């Protein structure tokens, strides 16, 4: 089962690695920012995966908190790790873009600061689960719900507050050359993120099964 899931995961990643640079190189150079704008094609998709995983984590945490389903807790834990991984990509690629486009690595404006805070909340969720001891899963679920509630603020921050970050309208107003490249990368990242989430959830399920077996061995 795992191997069946892992192969499409690798194929999606390989397809993206092989074709994305070709598409990105062929996409038009943006008039104001120039060549560095091409970071956009994997910076934004990594945030898209982070956002989707954050919502999965938040909703699964709410289900676990109110219904006590262990499967929902395992899904939330797997999704939080995907948030941490793809959020890290976004947080590193963004400053590399900003250094050239804005002249600074980092700017403490609403979008960047909120993104960092939300990412730290999900890292906190993972640390709480890892080192929090018994009962930490429920505390972590509450933290994940509040972290997820921040996501709409992160998304709308560029439209509501004055910020150096491009607005959300950028994606919807892309020209034909940029649009194809962007959606190729976005779909590739989302496919990869989904498959990673599926495999990671399977790992959580296997770990729970192993814990049960150890309990039976102790009896």
């Amino acid at each position: 089962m795992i191997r069946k899931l892992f192969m499409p995961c690798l194929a999606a990643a390989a397809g993206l690695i092989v074709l994305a640079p070709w598409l990105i190189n062929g996409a038009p150079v943006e008039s104001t920012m120039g060549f560095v704008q091409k970071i956009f094609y994997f910076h934004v998709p990594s945030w898209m995966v982070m956002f989707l995983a954050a919502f999965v984590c938040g909703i699964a945490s709410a289900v676990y908190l109110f219904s006590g389903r262990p499967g929902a807790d395992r899904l939330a834990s797997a999704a939080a790790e995907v948030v941490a991984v793809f959020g890290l990509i976004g947080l590193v690629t963004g400053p590399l873009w900003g250094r050239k486009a804005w002249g600074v690595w980092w700017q403490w404006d609403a979008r960047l600061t909120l993104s960092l805070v939300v990412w730290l909340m999900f890292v906190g969720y993972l640390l709480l689960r890892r080192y929090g001891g018994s009962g930490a899963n429920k505390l972590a679920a509450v933290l994940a719900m509040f972290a997820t509630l921040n996501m709409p603020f992160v998304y709308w921050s560029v439209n509501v507050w004055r910020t150096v970050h491009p607005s959300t309208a950028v994606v919807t107003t892309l020209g034909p050359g940029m649009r194809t490249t962007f959606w190729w990368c976005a779909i590739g990242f989302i496919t990869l993120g989904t498959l990673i989430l599926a495999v990671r959830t399977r790992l959580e399920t296997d770990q729970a099964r192993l814990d049960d077996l150890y309990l039976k061995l102790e009896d």
Partner: protein
Amino acid sequence: MFSLLTTQELVPFTPGEVLPAAPLVMTAYAFAWLVVFFYMRSMWRRLERVERDIASATRQLAERRP
């Protein structure tokens, strides 16, 4: 933010000072794929270890049964 918008002094442009974009794009692209690669490798290793432990625990349980 406002410190960026308010000009404190005027500095003349020096040719050759323009930051090249290609190394930044390449670094960002390489970083993204290295993170994904190492994360997938770590996940794969954890899966193998858990599957091995499950097989071992199942075997021990089976040996205990009369």
